[in-house]
């Protein structure tokens, strides 16, 4: 029997990623470049938040300390968060948001597909449901990457700058932490190394259509899954956790 702490860690990596990227996308509410895209991003925010809830609920059940989804989302410290670093990056501008979303969506397309075959039935079910939503997020982020990349001189430059800036935070997708290696051996999660070639093909395909070049920097940053975050996460948590800390146990 596999140790529950590995499963718990894996669930938190993706619950936290969903929670944080959901929050970031939600920050666009009322600030989108046009109303239609404002709506698109807030729609996606809700999907990510919904997915995070399903994962937090499951994590709470196996945690065994009667933690609720709210406890997990609102009452943990920064170093206890395990989200992918990319999710916590500030929105900056629309090109940056599109690049961030494209990298995450293209990763989740293959990861979720792999998870639909998980030996853990609950994970397989959550993945089946989530994959449907990620498919249209991926369509949206690919389309915008192409529109902006292959658009005007200015939009191209902004898209390329955004890609260059966050490229080194994509390596973490495929660098497994111990839990992910153990779970992969158990058939609970796919092997991350095996997902990488598929992801690379997606990136190459969309980038070539978008006339965006793949940065050739080798160095890749990791640490999010182990709780080592950028300075940006603390600010999000301060914002997100304010109500729960000011009014403990608040329900709405």
């Amino acid at each position, binding site marked *: 029997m596999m140790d529950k702490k590995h499963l718990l860690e894996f669930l938190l990596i993706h619950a936290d990623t969903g929670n944080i990227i959901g929050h970031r996308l939600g920050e666009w509410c009322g600030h989108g470049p046009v109303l*239609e895209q404002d709506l698109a991003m807030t729609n996606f925010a809700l999907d990510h938040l919904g997915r995070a809830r*399903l994962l937090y609920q499951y994590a709470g059940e196996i945690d065994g300390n009667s933690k609720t989804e709210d406890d997990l989302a609102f009452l943990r410290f920064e170093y206890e968060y395990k989200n992918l670093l990319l999710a916590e990056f500030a929105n900056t501008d629309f090109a940056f948001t599109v690049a961030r979303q494209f990298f995450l969506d293209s990763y989740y397309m293959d990861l979720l597909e792999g998870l639909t075959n998980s030996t853990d039935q609950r994970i397989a079910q959550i993945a089946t449901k989530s994959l449907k939503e990620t498919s249209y997020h991926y369509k949206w982020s690919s389309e915008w990457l192409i529109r902006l990349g292959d658009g005007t001189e200015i939009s191209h430059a902004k898209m390329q700058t955004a890609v260059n800036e966050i490229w080194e935070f994509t390596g973490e997708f495929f660098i497994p932490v111990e839990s992910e290696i153990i779970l992969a051996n158990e058939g609970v999660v796919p092997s991350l190394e095996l997902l990488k070639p598929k992801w690379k093909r997606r990136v190459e395909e969309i980038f070539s259509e978008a006339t965006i070049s793949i940065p050739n920097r080798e160095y890749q940053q990791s640490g999010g899954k182990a709780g080592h975050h950028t300075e940006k996460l603390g600010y999000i948590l301060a914002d997100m956790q304010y109500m729960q800390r000011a009014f403990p146990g608040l329900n709405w």
Partner: protein
Amino acid sequence: MKTNDYLGEVDPLTLKKINEVLSNVFDPEIPVLSIIDLGILRNIKWENGILVVEITPTYNGCPAMNVIEWNIQAALGEAGIEHFKIKTILDPAWTTDWMSEQGKIKLQEYGIAPPQTKARIRKMFDSEESIICPRCLSNQTRLVSEYGSTACKSMYQCKACLEPFDYFKCH
């Protein structure tokens, strides 16, 4: 119908009655559609004297789901059923293909264009065309925004009567 049937043997008529009760639970955001019209209600069954109601969410983050669950509890309580549990199932994932024909007619009468084809994953830059206007029934319409006020809807405008309208998109 005796209300103590839940303690005894499974009576198909009882399930029929419960089905009727649940057909009066509506989506809070689209109050003409019941959870049966939407395909949210997947199954009802008795398990050791407890009624198990299986529902499936439309979209993962749809805020209507919580309200729907409360309304199911209220409806069952009102019908005198004391022992029940509501179970959420995710697989197979909900699709608009499960929407009833009656539900589609009710949607249209309500002013929302119902899903017009089978759900499928669309190719890049492909959008749903020729959606029929729920007001004047023209198919000369244009997509305004693929995303709308709720996760399940897109916004269109009719070129014939010029009215904007919501479209319940295929999913």
